[in-house]
């Protein structure tokens, strides 16, 4: 690896000072499961690697009634998935955390790293987008929050400025009568990057099958994670039936702008979006106690 220096400040202020003053490229580090290999392969450079795991605020993992879930930037995917509130209230977040790499990777990797690395295929992002999660960012000008949906600007690119850090991800409490699910497609059964991923969220009106709110977010089929708004519109305000789900699945494809690469062709990716949208929506309905006959 090319030489760099390493810093592990114990306070947020120290970290921010360092970001502000350092000459050269500073790279925040959490699990290192993206960063270290990128440095080794020289896909990224660093003059300073800034380990944020010794900063107490970065370890916040808390559920606050009405506010929702706070996942600090230094919290691992494994710890997130094991957290009681996540188990109970955010099954799709849990599922996606448990899809990131292997056990070894999950023990180090963070949602923050997944988000900041900003790969279109990032698995933890689509569920967070469907849940209207926000990225809490700190910098010299204080704290700001950005809806996760607006966080990404391109493959590997996002709204973070060079002097800012992602502090935590904040996820509002799930709506009543709602269900959320994430599925991705990979050729193997583990240790693969999504060819396509879909998270669906369905909130029903009290009693009955009318969809009050739908959110569908896609991974690996556009330069950034994207919402399939047209597909959501198909569902909202209507009784959810198999036919409607089928129509939504077709519509979801319209949000895709996939590429053809080593992992799959653009056409196949679109097909997968259809399949995964259908499957996640059906799963949501089933877990809301409204299974649809197939």
């Amino acid at each position, binding site marked *: 690896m*090319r030489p760099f220096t390493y810093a592990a400040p114990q306070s947020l202020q120290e970290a921010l000072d360092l970001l502000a003053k350092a000459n050269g490229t500073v790279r925040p580090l959490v699990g290192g499961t993206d960063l270290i290999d990128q440095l080794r392969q020289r896909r990224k450079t660093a003059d300073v690697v800034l380990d944020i795991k010794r900063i107490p605020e970065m370890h916040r993992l808390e559920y606050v009634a009405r506010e929702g879930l706070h996942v600090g930037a230094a919290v691992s995917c494994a710890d997130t998935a094991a957290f009681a509130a996540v188990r109970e209230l955010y099954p799709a977040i849990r599922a996606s955390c448990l899809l990131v790499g292997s056990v070894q990777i999950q023990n180090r990797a963070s949602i923050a790293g997944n988000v900041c690395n900003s790969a279109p295929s990032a698995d933890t992002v689509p569920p967070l987008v469907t849940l209207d999660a926000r990225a809490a960012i700190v910098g010299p000008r204080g704290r700001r929050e950005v809806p996760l949906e607006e966080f990404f600007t391109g493959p590997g690119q996002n709204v973070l400025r060079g002097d800012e850090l992602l502090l935590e991800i904040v996820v509002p409490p799930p709506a009543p009568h709602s269900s959320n699910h994430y599925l991705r497609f990979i*050729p*193997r059964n583990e*240790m693969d990057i999504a060819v396509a991923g879909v998270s669906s969220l369905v909130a029903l009106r009290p009693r009955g099958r009318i969809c009050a709110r739908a959110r569908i977010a896609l991974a690996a089929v556009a330069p950034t994670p994207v919402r399939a708004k047209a597909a959501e519109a198909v569902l909202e305000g209507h009784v959810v039936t198999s036919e409607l789900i089928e129509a939504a699945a077709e519509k979801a494809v319209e949000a895709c702008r996939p590429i053809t690469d*080593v992992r799959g*062709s653009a056409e196949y990716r679109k097909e997968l979006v259809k*399949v995964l949208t259908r499957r996640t929506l059906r799963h949501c309905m089933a877990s809301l106690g409204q299974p649809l006959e197939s």
Partner: protein
Amino acid sequence: MATVSERKKTRYIGKRTPKYDALERVTGQALFAADLHLPGMLHGKVLRSPHPHALIKRIDTRKAEALPGVKAVVTAADLPPPERAQGMLGGELLISIMDLRRLTIAHDKALFEGHAIAAVAATTPEVAEEALDLIQVDYEVLPPVENALEAMSPDAPLLQPDLYTKTLGEQPERPSNVATHSESSRGDLERGFAEADLVHETSYETKMVHQGYLEPTATVAHAQPDGRITLWTSTQGIFGIRRSLGHLLDLPLGKVNVIPTEIGGGFGGKIYAILEPLAALLSRKSGHPVKIVMSRAEVFRATGPASPTHITVKTGAKKDGRLTAAYVKLVMDAGAVPGAPIGGASLVCLAPYKLDHMKIEAYDVVTNKPRVQAYRAPGGTPAAFAVESHMDQVAERLGIDPLAFRMLNAVDEGDRMTDDRPYNRIGLKEVLRRVAKHPSWTSPLPPGPHRGRGLALGFWAGATLTSTAHVLVHADGTATLVSGQVDLTGTRTTMQQIVAEELQVPLESVSVRVGDTDSTPYTDLSAGSRTAYSFGAAVHNACQDVLAQLRVHAADHLTAQPEHVEYADGRFWLRDSPDQNVDLVTVARRSTFRATGPICGRGTVTRLQPAPQFAAHVADVEVDPDTGKVTILRYTAFQDVGRALNPTQVEGQVQGGAAQGIGWALTEYYHFEKGVMRNPTFLDYRMPTSLDLPMIDCELVEVPASDGPYGARGVGEVPIVPPAAALANAVYRAAGVRLHKLPMTPEEVFRARQATSAIG
């Protein structure tokens, strides 16, 4: 040696004795090449061509040499002149020494992406890496030849202007990318097709895949001031490496000592010298020991994967299922220099079928890819994928059960291999009978949609070659087996069993030592399923020699003639007066100072009969109709192993081979774009994980081989042969589509289904 086909009662043979060297492996003590550290050792790194095909106009290494910490930089100019670079190197695939020289480091032309251009030795890996950046190379980029069919077209760019096709027919006038065109035939093909009620023709394609051994290629070289070179290296054959070094560096064999380290998998891919000559050159130039360890990407790009193929199969059959004729055309991609496994593929393709009329044509073609090496039954997997897929289609068109069809046409002892050698004792029919009775075949598929079962056969002739072993008996009666035979597949374990069995001593009193080229006599490489079989025979012979020598000493002690001495269980006695006896320990102790002196038994074999291996695999799969993804529900491997010397080890070979075949079938391939590999990581080169494979059930059939120890056959190669075809046949039944290409990735299966539904 004597045939030991009748089954005697054995003490260790056939038992699940624990792996000889397991303890050092579970405790992290086993030393692999990358684990070595010598005083003053430098780190070597290799500059590799980013272009698959390019002329090298100029290499400027001055800046790199000037970098502090850099101790040597080498290019092709540092190789001694090629006077001694003559002849061919054996192993599993042949390679000419001149070609090996060219592969080691590009001379004036880069022949594949990843081709070594220069190498650097420096005090740290970081400095070596930085030095690579400072080497300036001027390339004139040429269009790459991307696949064998393209390479064969008359207007394809030529890789080597001096390559002329070797063929039995007319000698060509123009150079070509086709290195060899071979033919083997029997009978009258046209007549055979004329007799047929059904003539069926299909074509298949397979891509480049890698052995995927977990240990990246690594080597340490130390050039001594007196010109001797010592190499610690991860190889399947130390004598082949020594010979290569001798040729490439112009050294007498006695000046090169190759010490085998533990080897973290080879599967045919660690046979010829790749890093060794570079490390030796760097060490010579710098005067320090030099270690080179490849990155995983380098392993993919610059070692030796398995050949991509295009195969056409045409057969004729009678209504009742009997085959009347078969024609197979094999086009095999060797990569940068000649040597694709056309021999192996030609032997495997029609091996299970009795045919009066047949013809096999094979083409060994060069392209701008890494030069292939052997990969477990080299050539066998693509050949069987083609033929076994084809035979399933023929059986279906004739309305015959696939197993019955194979039984009807199966070869037996006395029938001929495709190269016309007669089969000695073989177990194909026994294997098929076992399948016919086994629940994996007879029980219904577990209920569910889109499920199917597939069957396919596999064959491997098995190499024999030369093997040598020494067995020493120490003064306390314990013994050590010494040889230069690298332990690739658990050889030490089975050989310990053989020695203990033959000397009738406890397993614990037998040690096994793998020595180096300086201190052990020549033995061929560990590959081709030959080790247990041929090396086992040598060990068996060495033990007989030990017993003969011991008898002399016992006779001396008992003042009798050796012919009158009997031996069993550590005791010698006179046949006519059993009271006169002496134990092994006493005899062994006396041997250190009496009569014919210390005991050193020598065993060698150079020419055993082949012990052909047949296998049948049965796979149950489920196909996700929406995504095309294939899930294996159940997998059973049937194999004639002759005699399972150690069932645990044999099952391990069968399961490992099947797993590799499954990866080849479903997910693994080199993704090339314009000759550049785009997936040189374990993330995107998708080898099966624990979640991708079921338990692999093994049904070992034991039809003793005609020759060799205890009737055992080689077992390591054939398990990789049937999986791709077994899965293709299962996918066909599960999803209604026939895949003619490997790998059967979800996307390929999905597209195939789309294509058929568009028609239907």
